[in-house]
């Protein structure tokens, strides 16, 4: 800050009129520079495990995502939500509502709700873990089965009645069929 030295840090002449700076040894004179280097060194040594962890993470994701398009990367990182949302986006018009009957764990329901809201906006998205869910004024119905890895992590805990589902889907028109997604709409 470039402040003036305090009077206490200056040696005084006997008369007290002309203060002279105190002479100090060479190491003491450069202690502040050594302190700055020491602080920096300690800081870097503490930061290093975090940095090396980050380099390892970067390496892992580079191997998985390197050389791929942004869509392919999103499909890998956000599997299967991104791919499912893209299929729904192609079939369901922007002003429509879609009800997802999801075979997934209870915590994953919230996860997919946020993902589908984001990817499918402005479509109205309803989602429930079970075959009996209903939603008013929802023209589209999507039957979504989560990836086995996610189900292994958090098993399905709702009510899933295949017989009732067949009965429910019978009057509807199937507009899309894929590995983990079927989309239906009311017949016109």
């Amino acid at each position, binding site marked *: *800050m*470039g*402040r003036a*030295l*305090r009077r206490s840090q200056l040696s005084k002449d006997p008369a007290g009129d002309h203060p002279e*700076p*105190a*002479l*100090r*040894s*060479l190491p003491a*004179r*450069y*202690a*502040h*520079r050594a*302190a*700055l*280097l020491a*602080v*920096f060194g*300690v*800081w*870097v040594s*503490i*930061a290093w*495990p*975090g*940095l*090396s*962890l*980050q*380099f390892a*993470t*970067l390496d892992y*994701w*580079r191997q998985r*995502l*390197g050389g791929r398009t*942004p869509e392919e*990367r*999103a499909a890998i*990182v*956000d599997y299967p939500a991104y791919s499912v949302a893209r299929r729904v986006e192609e079939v369901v018009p922007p002003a429509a509502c879609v009800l997802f009957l999801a075979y997934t764990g209870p915590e994953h329901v*919230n996860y997919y*709700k*946020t*993902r589908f*809201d*984001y990817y499918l*906006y*402005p479509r*109205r*998205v309803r989602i429930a873990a079970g075959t009996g869910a209903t939603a008013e004024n929802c023209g589209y119905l999507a039957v979504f089965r989560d990836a086995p890895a996610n189900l292994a992590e958090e098993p399905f805990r709702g009510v899933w009645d295949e017989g009732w589902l067949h009965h429910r889907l019978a009057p509807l028109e199937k507009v899309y069929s894929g590995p983990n997604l079927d989309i239906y709409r009311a017949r016109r």
Partner: protein
Amino acid sequence: MICAFLFTCVAGWLLICPWLSRRPGLGLVPAIALSFAAGTAALSLDLLLLNLAHIPWTRFSVLSPWIAAAAAHALFGRRRWAPPMPRLRRPCFLEIAALAFSGIVLLAWVPYERLMPLNEWDAIMLWMFKAKAFYLDGSIAPYMSRAHEFLGNPAYPLLVPLYTTFLYIFSGSAADQLAKLVSPCLLASLAAGFYYFLRRYGSRPVAAIFTSMLAGVYMVDVAAFRYAGYADTAVAAAILLAAGFLYAWFYEGDYADFALAVFFASIAAWTKNEGQFFLAGFGALAAARLISRRIWNSSYWFTLAAFPILFVTPWVAARSVYGVKRPGELSGEMMRTNIASYGPTVKAIFEHAFTPAPPDAFGSRVWLFNLAFPFCLLAVFLYRRAGLDRRFWALPALACWQLFGVSLVYVTGPVNLQWMIGSSLDRVLSQIAPLALLAAALAFASYYSRAEARLEIPAEDGASLRKRREKARASPKKQRGKSQA
């Protein structure tokens, strides 16, 4: 998109140049970085005001006020709008070391941020989702009317979503991969502001070393690069800039510093709820200083009221117009449970701030905030020895106020305390860590500058030092002899 970022800097500069251009020691890079932080707030507020006035968002409607402002500055501004020109000098060894470490940090994080798609929870659920919805709807009204359908909190302030909407309007599509750049750019503003304050009150090596140390704080990097699309880096930048300019005003008493401090504190309130708490503490501190110094100049008091009103009132009005409410109600039972766990909450906050994180799967323990908080505590005890006076307390006081705010938010929150601490405490502390480190860095900078000033005194060789010591040892005996006689 690059043009949008450049335009943001221009808009910010137009807004703050009357004060910023005359700041001592301001270089070109800090001027651009501070202008960017100001520009994000200005453009997001621009969009909100246009929306409230029922003017559709187009490139022309959004940009025209700033083009008019630029023309006015050019015609009547007497070149005060011109940014400072850079003065290049050869870096010293310490600056090269700082640059090298910063480079390693950037090599670890920038490619990662560019590689990963938008994926993190709050970005998808909250911040970027609002931005996308506002852009697709061309207004904030449809999203607000449907807010009950979504899991996000519609009551959060809109700086980040509306600034991202501006980027989408500028680029013509909801390009979320590019919008993720906002957080790293705000980290650049944060780091440049940090460097500027240290350069203003310290030497170049100290400024460079401590700025690189800030760049190496793990959780600050996580907030900016992994959680790109969140608002935490924006809050951290606004808090740091407000506190830094407040410190400058405390020491130098220049109105321009005061105006910039209030401006950035108001931006913090327009960014996130934590920023509103910061603005309350900041306002109280600034008002206390004005009263204690008997400053009754109306321009100070007007500034202290005008910027918070400018940034907070439109959002309050919009919330009222669209009937926005906070999701979740705090039940009496949850309140009692949370208050009973206030002590453990404070303990958790201090544990996260002062100790390394628990070991991960590989057994390594990462210090999320490095030694930022311990150094701040050390500075509180040593600031007098570093040559500072009690005005230094402004920075640790604001950091403590924010920590207190965090504990209050957790205790009064409508959700389970443990879940909330686990999911957000590190991010919230990452907003305060730069401020804590700035306090420590300024104390060190003061100590370092005083020591450098003393270097102008010639060094003495070993022989003369021994002679002087012997003389010093002998003189008390002489004194004693005289007194006995």
